[in-house]
């Protein structure tokens, strides 16, 4: 009889980090499906491309760092970063944009900081921000129009050609995103005029907010609700993000003749993806309950500020990265009150 001698607790919940990452990936499926339905196979190709790049370069870095490769690859964190990055990028961005973004996310934003759990910034958003500022043309002209507005839907061959070979005829399938369109049109037109554009109501007036985009956002919202139910993250970040964004939009941008209306803020951009899948990345977010509320609200405010007064039509990446900077500080000043204590500790311990 050879008895094990270890200290308590002896019972643990089954599962590991990989299970968490796979659950999040599963929750992305409805969003990816809807994206592909409305915008063609571009995102799927980008997902494959980014995933392959991420896994290969993660394996290479692990080899260089002398870490067990399979053990770390099966935490699926690189895969999740790749998928999140791929669905954030324009579906028909050239292949090298995706590869550069992925390499930068995995090598610089993740491993150079010490690997999983050590990175202060969301790797996918670092990759996204890099290519957004470096390759503005590719990043703004590769969004496809919803397939209902095209003469024929985009075939896989066409998609592969746009991404890997030639971008000669890509103008035929691309158009500005609804947020981009509204933001630029509102300076010269009224809301009623802007809403004439079929991207908002669809060719047969079958969309109420923005063709395709509204369903993409609903699908990500659904996935997020699933993760909340699975207790992968708590409600704090997404709820405070959505509330702060909504409140700003209602109080400042109530006049849709001058500002992008609330409905577009919530359902026409990357808001739901950002609120439920990007801002909730636990490694880079605040971790205390109060801290999460502050962190989420900060992202919501920054999204509104950048979208309204900044140069970019969408702003999830920059808003998240800016709040990543603040997360450690927020954590120190939002500690919960420990059982039996009269009040919560604020800040770090003073050095003697």
């Amino acid at each position: 009889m050879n008895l094990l001698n270890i200290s308590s607790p002896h019972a643990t919940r089954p599962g590991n980090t990989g299970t968490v990452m796979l659950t999040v990936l599963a929750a992305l499926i409805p969003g990816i499906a809807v994206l592909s339905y409305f915008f063609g196979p571009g995102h799927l190709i980008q997902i494959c491309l980014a995933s392959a790049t991420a896994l290969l370069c993660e394996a290479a870095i692990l080899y260089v760092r002398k870490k067990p490769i399979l053990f770390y690859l099966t935490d699926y964190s690189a895969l999740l970063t790749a998928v999140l990055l791929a669905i954030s990028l324009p579906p028909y961005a050239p292949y090298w944009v995706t590869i550069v973004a992925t390499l930068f996310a995995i090598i610089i934003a993740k491993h150079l900081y010490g690997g999983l759990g050590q990175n202060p910034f969301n790797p996918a958003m670092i990759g996204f921000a890099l290519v957004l500022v470096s390759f503005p043309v590719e990043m703004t002209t590769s969004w496809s129009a919803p397939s209902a507005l095209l003469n024929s839907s985009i075939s896989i061959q066409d998609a592969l050609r746009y991404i890997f070979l030639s971008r000669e005829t890509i103008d035929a399938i691309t158009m500005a995103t609804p947020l981009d369109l509204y933001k630029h049109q509102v300076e010269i037109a009224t809301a009623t005029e802007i809403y004439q554009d079929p991207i908002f109501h669809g060719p047969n007036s079958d969309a109420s907010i923005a063709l395709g985009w509204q369903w993409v956002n609903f699908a990500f919202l659904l996935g997020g609700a699933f993760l909340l139910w699975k207790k992968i993250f708590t409600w704090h970040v997404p709820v405070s993000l959505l509330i702060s964004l909504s409140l700003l939009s209602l109080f400042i941008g109530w006049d849709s003749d001058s500002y992008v209306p609330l409905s577009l803020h919530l359902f026409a951009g990357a808001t739901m993806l950002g609120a439920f899948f990007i801002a909730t990345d636990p490694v880079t977010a605040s971790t205390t309950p109060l801290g999460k509320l502050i962190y989420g609200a900060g992202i919501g405010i920054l999204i509104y500020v950048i979208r309204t007064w900044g140069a970019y039509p969408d702003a999830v990446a920059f808003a998240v990265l800016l709040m990543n900077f603040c997360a450690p500080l927020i954590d120190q000043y939002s500690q919960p009150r420990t059982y039996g204590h009269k009040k919560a500790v604020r800040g770090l311990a003073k050095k003697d």
Partner: protein
Amino acid sequence: MNMHHYTLHDFKGGIHPEQNKSQSTGQDISTAGIPKILILPISQHIGAPAVPLVKVGDVVLKGQVIAQGEDFVSCNLHAPTSGVISAISEAPVPNQSGMQDTCIQITTDGNDSWPPIKGLDNYLDAEPQALIEAISQAGISGMGGAGFPTHVKASIPASKIDTLIINAAECEPYITSDDALMRENAADIIKGIEILQAILKPQQCYIGIEDNKPEAIKALQDALKENKDDTHGIHVVVIPTKYPSGGEKQLIQILTGLEVPVAGLPADIGIVCQNIGTVRAIFQAVALGRPLISRITTITGDTVAHPQNFEVLLGTPVQYLLEQAGCDQNKIQRLIMGGPMMGFTITDNQIPVTKTSNCIIAATHNELADPAMEQACIRCGMCTQACPAQLLPQQLLWFAKSSNLDQAQAHNISDCIECGACSYVCPSNIPLVQYYRFAKGEIKQAKADKQSSEQAKLRFDTRNARLEREEAEKAEKRKARAEAAAKKQAAKKDAPPTEDATAAASDPAAELKGLKQKVLASQTRVDKARERLSMAQEQNLDTAGALQLGLDKQIEKLAIAQKNLEQANS
């Protein structure tokens, strides 16, 4: 009726692990019987170990005191059955660290013969002091796990207590010993609570019990109905099943909404908590005069063919119990004393059951899997959600890992109750509690080191001061001697040597000098004695008491010398 509706207060965090309780609740409690040998550690409680009253070869009767708790915070130990003392020696005891301790070993004779025992008559009308004395004599300590001497808790002035809480939550998986006891002995339990009420005179009394024990709840309610009238004010409060609701602090929070202040006791907020098993032992001690010699222990786990609860004599080796329950001992991979969340593994099956052993789990490999490889913390915060003490477990992990003890303390690591909820939920399989134990140990060590170095410095300074003073004294003496010699020389020259000796003796100046020297000398002795005492205290030597007496005497002498000097001066 006792079915009042109570406003329950939830505690933050908590988890719902697999309960694994049904395995051992199928059968009634059976008696484990008398093993050939009983091994009784003299320290089964918190406080000073009991002092053995017997020697090897002594014949003892069942219930005879074999070791006495001489301190107030200590417990008597009784022979669980009749037999012969066959050894008093070091043996492995139930302990986190697998340590050995002094144990009294009884070779049983199988007669199980009692001397006559008798409880207190009309005990509910007895003086509280008499009841406490009966509890103290019976050697009862908390049977839920901590093992705090019960008579100490019962001695808290009744004026300070307004709520008595009986902890029947039994929230850890696998353990069903309290559940079984309540099902079968509810009446005794109620009577035991009445004894505590007679001592502590609380305004209210709650039995906190998790809703996963419907039969026990019914048994308690029936016992309350049968019990005379409804004047005893005992309320069975059913609480939701959630680990660790049976933690004393958490149960208090659930039932009253109050929190035990940091570094304080439940008595600070007018509450006393007692465990179900303890309450039954109190009833047996006071009403029947039966000392604590047995307890209910759950024997369970997948290697056990008939998991069930046993009435076990204290000192029964675990191996004997496993055999009684039909355990395939070759299949055991992990042998746990206590529950799977806070219990500890034992590696020796000769370790005995003590007053606090509520459960033994003989688990297979599949049942409690080997610890998985630790992955990186992804700061998911599931630990923060689970922590019942509202700590930030993942922040504490960083501080523990980097030995950043200042920050760990600032983040209240000392408030961690080591319930294991954080480790249980951690998706990265990080042994969080183990990291905290490490950090707590480091903090304790650092504090001890600091205290010891401060004391060493104090000792060094005192010694230096004494040496300086001694040197000064010597110099003065030398000077005085030289002066005296010079005077003598001068006197010899000036006058004929008459009446010299008598003059010196009656010379008040010389007398004064002598007294002064006496004061200085006894000052030095006081300093030396003080130094020795502080050294002994620092090393926790037993001689400290004697040294203290010596110091007191020297101080007395110094005072006398000073008084003499003053008188001579005036």
